[in-house]
């Protein structure tokens, strides 16, 4: 059981905005984003770091925000699903999911999209095998992954020549 530990001050950048807060030490980053910053696009789907619905970008890397303490994100630059589209224009990966029916219930989708953004940032021309491998940490129960893979291929083909992250 947790006794009363003093709150921890943190400062981080989320979707380009500086945020400062005092958090209970045990607060997970995902709950800080959801409950304190009201960025509810990042979802929680399990309690064992398997499903990946909570995936965000932290310092440019895709991480599962259910397995990072908010305190560990002190000083970090965080991007969530809410930070991808700019001026009403979808990020290419979001556009790919729209074009290729890459989502059904939408619950795993933010995590899938963030994982795919990280993949294309680091590997703009992935093979299908590389896409499947990149998605190993993200579970979807609706799509059978078929159209998620198609969505990411669409984004890679359409925007592979450009920097897809921005």
């Amino acid at each position: 059981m947790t006794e009363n530990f003093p709150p921890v001050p943190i400062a981080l950048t989320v979707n380009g905005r500086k945020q400062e807060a005092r958090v209970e030490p045990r607060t997970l980053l995902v709950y800080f984003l959801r409950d304190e910053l009201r960025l509810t696009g990042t979802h929680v789907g399990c309690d064992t770091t398997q499903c990946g619905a909570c995936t965000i970008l932290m310092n440019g890397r895709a991480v599962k925000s259910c397995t990072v303490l908010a305190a560990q994100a002190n000083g970090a630059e965080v991007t969530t699903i809410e930070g991808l589209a700019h001026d009403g224009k979808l990020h290419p990966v979001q556009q790919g999911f729209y074009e290729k029916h890459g989502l059904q219930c939408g619950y795993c989708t933010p995590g899938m999209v963030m994982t795919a953004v990280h993949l294309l940032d680091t590997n703009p021309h992935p093979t299908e095998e590389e896409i499947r491998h990149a998605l190993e940490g993200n579970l979807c129960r609706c799509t059978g992954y078929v159209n998620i893979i198609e969505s990411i291929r669409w984004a890679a083909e359409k925007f592979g020549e450009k920097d897809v992250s921005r």
Partner: protein
Amino acid sequence: MTTEHKPAGLIGQSIRRVEDPTLLTGKGCYVDDVQLPGTLHMAVLRSPYAHARIVSMNTDRAAQMPGVERVLTGNETERLTIPSPVMVPGQKIPPHPVLARGAVHAVGVPVAAVVATTRALAQDAANAIDVEYDPLPAVVDAEKALEPGAPLAREELDSNVCYIATKKGGDVEKAFAEADHVVRMHIKSPRQVAMAIEPRGAVANPEPLGRGLTVWLSTQSPHRVRADLATALGFPEHKIRVIAPDVGGGFGSKGPLYREYVLACHFALLLGRPVKWIATRSDDFVTMIQGRDQAMTSELALKRDGTMLGLKVRVVANLGAYLYSNTAGPPQRMMAMAPGCYQIRNAHVEVVAVFTNTVPTGPYRGAGRPESVLNIERLVDKAARELGIDRIELRRKNFIRPDQFPYRTAVGVEYDSGDYDKALSEALRLSGYEQLIRERDQARRRGELVGVGISTFVEPSGGAGFESGTVRVERTGEITVLTGSSSHGQGHETIFAQIAAEKLRVSMEHVAIRHGDTLAVQQGVGTFGSRSAVMGGGALAQALDRVVEKARRIAAHLMEAAPEDVIQADSGFAVAGVPNRIVTWRQIAAAAYGRLPPGMEPGLQETVFFDPRREAWGFGTHLAVVRIDRETGRPTVEKLVLVDDCGVVINPMIVEGQIHGGVAQGLGEAFREQMLFGDGGEVITGSLVNYAVPRAGDIPPMILGETVTPNPFNPLGVKGVGECGTNGAPPAIANAVMDALAPLGIDHLDMPYTAPKLWAAIRAAEARNARG
């Protein structure tokens, strides 16, 4: 207001989904995203035992902890129980309290609940409740639960049998007496977890002075759950508003009213504050209804030439420890389609539904269909092998023929339409079947284990009951559709808008689909059993027709023409022969809410409660090629061909998505997924660490095909498609795996076909064969 219209018609086009921009930008609203000021959070303490008496409970320490507002045990909630309807005459319904009283009958049963100011403090307090248990003997396996001397899963009853039900037709004994050959099998379908990625949740918000209660629930069936909630709480239904916001998948498991929903509402009414409960994945693993777990013992009687004469099936269905509203349902479904797509004039099917000390079962994608298809398709393959008849020819010989529809089966169910050979032939064509068989035989000669399997199946959809649809033309001519069919990922907002826009000849952006709110939507049913396009679509189509007819009369009045001379035109109506002069929906609406001639009722809104009093029987053929590594037992799907016939297709992209997802779940069932309990009822696969759902790397390429046999009894000609993947694919894989193992003399293995299971079977067979 643009009046762009797609002249080619919207039904049948792969329109991109209306839902997606919201969901893709993180702006969806699932239950846990509902954040009300002053919310208290609920945590639940659950039984670690499968069967035990509760000796004592002490909540004193928990009640004193920081942030805790209230702790409740079963002693203080004795009136709160989960209502279970009688689905089968003579069915036993043991008590189902929302908090255990006196005893627990499965791991995960709530024994106490806490509300506190934060989620974490509530959980801390729940962990501080002391409970002393006295363990009792448990029973886990349904067939063992029927043996003499088996422990009683529910000590209130005198046996473990919940109900026995029978369906029969023809003269089964005569059929078996006249048979040249009888095929016998015993097949167990592995217990499955639905595993929608969004866990369940509830937010209950009471209005002051008992005026009402608004509840956000992650549910597939808001109206039905509301009625059950009212019954459970003793709070009037018409004062409860249930909202199913965005729902993150369900697959059947979000159908019933769950105990935690009642508890959250009870706390909210008790304390006059909003209460939120969000399940953890671990909670869901031990408390949501699970699927399958039916053991089937069957005999199929045939003539030497392959003519099927009779079928006997005995199903022992594991219901788990408690009954939810739909727990008794799947075995009924299994019975109703036991003869599959074959002319079997004599059948006797019996279900023995059994209580055990396990998580309750209920509908999971297919809900009795996958068990039934698995049973008959394994029997047919085995019959072909034993009679030395080609399995394709055996199927063709016994298919119900297209000219026999509507066809009443021996178990008293009427199929509307079908052309089973057409789907089979298409699957054979798409797969290059002859070549596949040649390749398989070559591989066999090299000692490799390769099998080709097919399943030909029916997919009953629509289900019992009605669905509702309202079409309202607003004052500005915008169209609002209220449907009782509430979505949890199936794309209702897109396909219903396609239907409405096509029928009204407006563009889709002028149509808004509203669902999942009992205050906004007339009584409805929900989404399960592949029913939305059939039932929700049927209700919508009829309501649209009525709106069009009324609007035609209004247009005729406005144009001073006879109604029979008024025809629909893009964005409104015109007089036949004068296509350029259009009265728009906006003008018609203005008249409907303004001045109408005497005798015409104001308004432009129609509601239909649609009940075709029959199901829609889709069908298909799935084909799989499976290779098994002889050394390691590791199976690989080398080809997967899926031909489905769901009648008229509204949106091919969405239909394909349904097939992909269902097949992926079917692959999970066939190769990996199984909920396991130890002999004492302890949970072995209680998290995603050890319950193996398919990942992106596990899914082989899928080749999709279709045939289209319109449903003659539906206004849109549609049939359901949501469950074909879990119905058709696992039996095709089972038949492929057993075909691959046939050279070793292995007769049958139950799913899931994990590498260790196959490895052990191969080694044992080799040892047997070496001994000669």
